[in-house]
């Protein structure tokens, strides 16, 4: 087995995955509540051929992903049904597929006056689904309490996770689902800001820089493939020459 070629292959494949992830981050730079996806490289080791640590060569790199849950910019919209979360809390959403979580606070009312997401999934309050009484403007307090004409009728259910990167995975549609690594906890130290939205946490300049960097790494590895191939070709030619 030629370890050099295999190592190069793993290196190139990981750079491809990185580009795909960067493409998704950049495509979602304006998605409300979107959280950046980051790839982590980790090394895998070659099979041990001897006692010498020199022979215990690093054989390559593979990737695993992780969501970066740092906060996005909060911008004012003036719309009553827009909420931004300051802190690490998530809104709880009831979908036909089960419980999901989101940071996208661009909520709506459906024809029955129920508070829903843009996909029509129910936003969960302390008493389950939230029906907003007609006949007044909805005001949402910093603790998520919901009131119409000063009359409190429910409160948004806010949850948090000790380690959201491990506890949640993305489902698309701005939703996160539990991975089973951790149970949701009652949110603390989070504030709801009505009339504002949290943008994505993508820094497009940073993404561009790392994309250029990633591309150059890819090219460098390709160079090493070319060298290895030439080297291999010469060796084979030399061996054949001896015979």
């Amino acid at each position, binding site marked *: 087995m030629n370890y050099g070629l295999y190592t190069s292959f793993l290196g190139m494949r990981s750079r491809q995955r990185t580009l795909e992830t960067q493409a998704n981050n950049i495509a979602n*730079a304006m998605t409300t509540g979107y959280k950046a996806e980051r790839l982590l490289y980790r090394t895998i080791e070659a099979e041990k051929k001897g006692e010498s640590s020199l022979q215990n060569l690093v054989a390559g790199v593979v990737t695993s992903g992780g969501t970066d849950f740092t906060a996005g910019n909060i911008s004012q919209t003036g*719309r009553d049904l827009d909420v931004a979360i300051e802190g690490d809390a998530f809104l709880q959403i009831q979908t036909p597929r089960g419980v999901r979580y989101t940071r996208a606070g661009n909520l709506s009312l459906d024809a029955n*006056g129920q508070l829903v997401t843009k996909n029509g999934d129910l936003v969960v309050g302390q008493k389950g689904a939230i029906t907003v009484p007609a006949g007044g403007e909805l005001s949402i307090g910093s603790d998520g309490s919901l009131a119409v004409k000063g009359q409190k009728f429910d409160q948004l259910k806010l949850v948090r996770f000790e380690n959201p*990167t491990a506890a949640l995975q993305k489902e698309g549609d701005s939703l996160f689902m539990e*991975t089973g690594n951790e149970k949701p906890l009652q949110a603390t130290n989070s504030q709801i800001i009505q009339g504002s939205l949290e943008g994505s946490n993508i820094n*497009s300049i940073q993404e561009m820089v790392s994309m250029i960097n990633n591309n150059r790494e890819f090219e460098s590895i390709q160079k090493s493939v070319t060298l290895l191939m030439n080297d291999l070709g010469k060796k084979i030619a030399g061996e054949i020459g001896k015979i």
Partner: protein
Amino acid sequence: MPNRALLTAATGMQVQQQNVDNIANNLANASTNGFKRTRIEFQDLMYQNMRSAGGAANASANLPVGLQIGMGARSIASERLFIQGEYKQTENPLDMVIEGSGFFQVRQSNGDLAYTRNGSFHLNNQGQIVTATGEFLEPSITVPTEASSFTVGNDGTVSVTIPGQANAQNIGQIQLAIFANPAGLEALGRNLFRETGASGQATVGSPDSNGIGRLSQGMVEGSNVNVVEELVNMISAQRMYETNSKVISTADRMLGTINQAVS
């Protein structure tokens, strides 16, 4: 494959294109009375799970993080923002604004009801109150030809004074409609909206009651488009379009590199 990055960046360019289309419509209607601006909302598309977080890493441990590759973004909604527009005083007795929520009801020529925030009305040759495009205000109100003044109260009561009569004469009351979800209304153009399954059924009532806004005469509601904000949004949409196109050229360069390696 970098192919996937190409497709992902294409979705990013497509949503920014729709974003700019929407901004163009908002800007074009910056001076349209009663116009409510829309905003495009984005969502991430589905993810390809390469490794599932929470899956078994070995007999005793679970994977703390997985590997998910996303497929890009899409536009999910054009949310109409029913934020109040600016009031402009006109002194024209047939101009009205709704202070608060609610819509004027108008009857289209095909007999269907439509709803509008544009309170700039006119009289037709029969003395009936109509919109600029000829839809009748509902319930229909006819102003007598001999009337010398026309007054609309905060509660929608319409009265006229007729020369030679001491008391003002009540000729009807304007009724307004509210919806559970006004953002679910469908825009018909001509400043009109139509009820849909998403908006819920119209609740009709007198102005200044049950959460319906009150009427003020002699003013019109301008659009709620903020030109500066739209221009800023347009610049950032354009920049994001460019950034997505850079992803395409990078993915293309990677594919080129592979071809070099093979040759």
